[in-house]
């Protein structure tokens, strides 16, 4: 006698829950991942400590609290600053740049100037107090 097996029913796989789950997983990984890339700006040792001994005179860049920049006492725009810095670096790769930010200037503005100098190829950038902010008790 032939016994008939009950036939298996083929159930259709629901695509909607699958898509739901894929989207949720995608969202999870998108939000869970951290895309922030950190970098760093390097400050050379202060003048007179023997860390950076450039052959040429240091270029003095002053930065006021509004973000305006002066190059050796002359007001310049940021592109001009970059161009002048690049000229100096072409002559002397170890040219020292001294940034003198005003006390009220923000760190972001200081980093901005340092970025401009780095863009021009400057390798030795240091910070000094603005002459108007120097505390004589330090001496």
């Amino acid at each position, binding site marked *: 006698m032939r016994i008939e097996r009950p036939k298996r029913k083929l159930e259709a796989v629901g695509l909607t829950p699958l898509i739901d789950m894929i989207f949720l997983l995608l969202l999870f990984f998108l939000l869970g991942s951290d895309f922030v890339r*950190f*970098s760093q700006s390097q400050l050379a040792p202060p003048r007179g400590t023997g860390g950076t001994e450039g052959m040429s005179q240091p270029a003095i860049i002053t930065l006021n609290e509004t973000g305006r920049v002066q190059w050796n006492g002359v007001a310049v725009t940021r592109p001009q600053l970059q161009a002048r810095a690049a000229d100096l670096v072409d002559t002397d790769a170890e040219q020292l740049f001294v940034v003198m930010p005003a006390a009220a200037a923000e760190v972001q503005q200081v980093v901005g100037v340092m970025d401009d100098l780095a863009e021009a190829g400057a390798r030795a950038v240091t910070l000094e107090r603005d002459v108007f902010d120097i505390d004589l008790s330090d001496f």
Partner: protein
Amino acid sequence: MKIDRPRRKFKTIDLLPLINVVFLLILFVLIAGRPTTDHPNEIEVALSTQEAAYIAAPFSVRLGADDKFYLAGNAPKSLSEIAAQVAQTGIGAQGLAVELIADRRAHAAALMDFRQAMAKAGVGEIRIKTEFAPEQGHGN
């Protein structure tokens, strides 16, 4: 006469919508509970157009938007305390760098004070931690 009530059908609970909702709740909590910065003390580091490989220094100091300095905890430290710790760890003597995780809204005066204190403690190189943002203007 006996009236037959229609029998209630017991439906099985579908688990998939439940899982979907639970995942959505997890996502909501993840987003809502996400800290706004990657650093303690609500520090938002300065944005930089320069991409330099980030190397963590052995000693790092945080500078908050309030121009106060912090080490590991949440209590502000004076620069003399920080300089004493730097001297104790011998970082200056070994020629190592000190990392400054400075808030972009902090003022240059604090930065200069830190620079001076570190120079006195014998530290030559200071690295300011920044966030690489290629399209970022500097707000000038």
